């Protein structure tokens, strides 16, 4: 996998009323070309600060970052030309139309008017903006505005698109819609780097993600890997009380079961991969003629992962709080 973003030992601290706050401590990461890479963590975890360092918006205190072959500190212009960045606030001009916003942005990246126009039209078609792109941005709905923000980050055909909390404040329908658009962007060959404090978003979108807390990366992997590293999938077997003892003894001998314990109404098992383990499990039980009342499979969530690595649930860590604007 060709790496398009590499960062080594990134650090950033801020001075706040004489106290020094370490916002980012020693963050290293590598993102492959064409991936959707995610930063998951609660507010204040250092996600945005890291993003702002990678996008040349914030000077790096220590460490190095390389984007598409250029050093972020020494060659910011080359980096800027190759990346798009959509901040939480967006940044489209309210008093201008969608077209005007897109064309200005493309021109600021050095494109000539004709090619910027062509590119803007194509993007508007991909992101479903065409219908309202000649209206002023102040008339847009939240979802429309967010799609324009995406287009603004893409108009100069960057290699990497950075999205800071892309769906914060959107309703569920618009979130799902935006996710589809982000996937469509990836299919055009772009690398997408996003931050989110939504578990379902990281789960649904990211090929790979890191979990951040208190300025450090606490875990990294594909959503599946991360969830499996924690507890694996859990299977609940509904059994008559008199069978629990026997079933537990039998299943303990099976290698594919990582953990087993009695619970009200049956047994709770933890397995690496639920879909592969279920038939195996049923075969074993069937062979020993143990009658099953019910069986259910539940996958761990990224919240379990977060809990495992930080000792707190993401909800408690403030991850799901509304952003202050």
């Amino acid at each position, binding site marked *: 996998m060709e790496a398009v973003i590499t960062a080594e030992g990134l650090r950033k601290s*801020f001075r706040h009323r004489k106290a020094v706050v370490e916002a980012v401590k020693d963050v290293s990461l590598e993102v492959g070309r064409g991936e959707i890479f995610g930063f998951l963590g609660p507010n204040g975890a250092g996600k945005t600060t890291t993003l702002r360092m990678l*996008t*040349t*918006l*914030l*000077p790096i205190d220590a460490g190095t970052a390389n984007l598409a072959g250029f050093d972020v500190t020494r060659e910011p*212009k080359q980096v*800027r*030309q190759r*990346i*798009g*960045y959509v*901040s*939480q*606030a*967006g*940044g*489209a*001009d*309210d*008093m*201008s139309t969608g077209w*005007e916003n897109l064309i*200005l*942005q493309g*021109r*600021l*990246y*050095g494109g000539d008017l004709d090619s910027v126009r062509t590119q803007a039209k194509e993007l508007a078609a991909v992101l479903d903006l065409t219908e309202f792109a000649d209206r002023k941005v102040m008339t847009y709905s939240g979802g429309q505005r967010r799609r324009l923000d995406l287009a*603004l980050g893409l108009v*100069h055909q960057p290699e990497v698109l950075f999205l800071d909390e892309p769906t914060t404040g959107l309703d569920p329908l618009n979130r799902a819609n935006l996710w589809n658009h982000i996937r469509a962007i990836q299919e055009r060959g772009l690398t997408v780097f996003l931050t989110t404090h939504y578990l379902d978003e990281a789960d649904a979108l990211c090929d790979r993600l890191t979990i951040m807390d208190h300025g450090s990366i606490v875990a990294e992997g594909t959503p599946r890997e991360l969830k499996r590293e924690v507890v694996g999938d859990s299977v609940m077997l509904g059994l008559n009380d008199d069978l629990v003892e026997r079933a537990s003894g039998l299943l303990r001998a099976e290698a594919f079961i990582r953990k087993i314990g009695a619970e009200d109404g049956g047994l709770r098992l933890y397995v690496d991969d639920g879909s592969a383990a279920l038939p195996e499990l049923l075969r074993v039980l069937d062979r020993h003629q143990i009658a099953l009342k019910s069986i259910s499979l539940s996958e761990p969530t990224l919240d379990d992962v977060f809990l495992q690595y930080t000792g707190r649930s993401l909800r408690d860590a403030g991850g799901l709080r509304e952003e202050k*604007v």
Partner: protein
Amino acid sequence: MRIVSDTGLMFQRHFTQQMRNPTWLFVGISSPVLYLALFTPLLEHFTRAASTGVVLDTFFPGILALLAFASGTAQGFGTIFELRSGVVERLRVTPASRFAILVGPIASAMTFMYFFDVVAVAVAYGFGFEINWGGLLVLAVLIGVFMATVSAWSVATALTMKEIDRFASVTNGLNLPTLLLAGVLLPISFGPTWMRVVAHFDPLYYVVEGARSLGAGAFGSSEVWQAFAVLVPLCGLVLAWATSVFKKAVA
């Protein structure tokens, strides 16, 4: 030249948006007229001048300097809004020249200021203000330099303060002494010695003094060259500082 085309784009953006704001245009045109209509009669009485024209010959150039000051300090409020709405970040993440991002909107605001000034001069002329064309042209350059200085200062301060209330406190806190010490409406020569000394630390003072001389057509007067000698280097310094703030702005 990239820096020129970037400045042009930023100019155009600001200009188009202001043109779509009729309230702002109306206030821009009416405030110099209000100054003339509401202040001239008072001065006329106070100075026991022979005619409105004589009063205006003395005070109108100061009003132009005052308008330049007001239009400069207003720039930072726009910056605060753009900071909060993500516009500053959106512009800073492009490879566009930081100087262009700063100067384009200032140049556009200056164009509007000149337009309002022309309206004001026309109205003042109607009241009897005696126009010295050469003097007014040099005065236009002087208030342009001054307006650019104040704008750049205001934008950079806004980027540093980040919050509207903090920025407004600083701006308002500085406005009052700056205006009073400059003798915009009443000449500082009316004041005691200490005031006349302190006034020399107020850039607006030099502009007002220079403006009065230029309004009267006294190109060669010491007030005029002093005004340029103070303002031109100051403008360079403030622009350089503001550009560097844009380079590393932390929001």
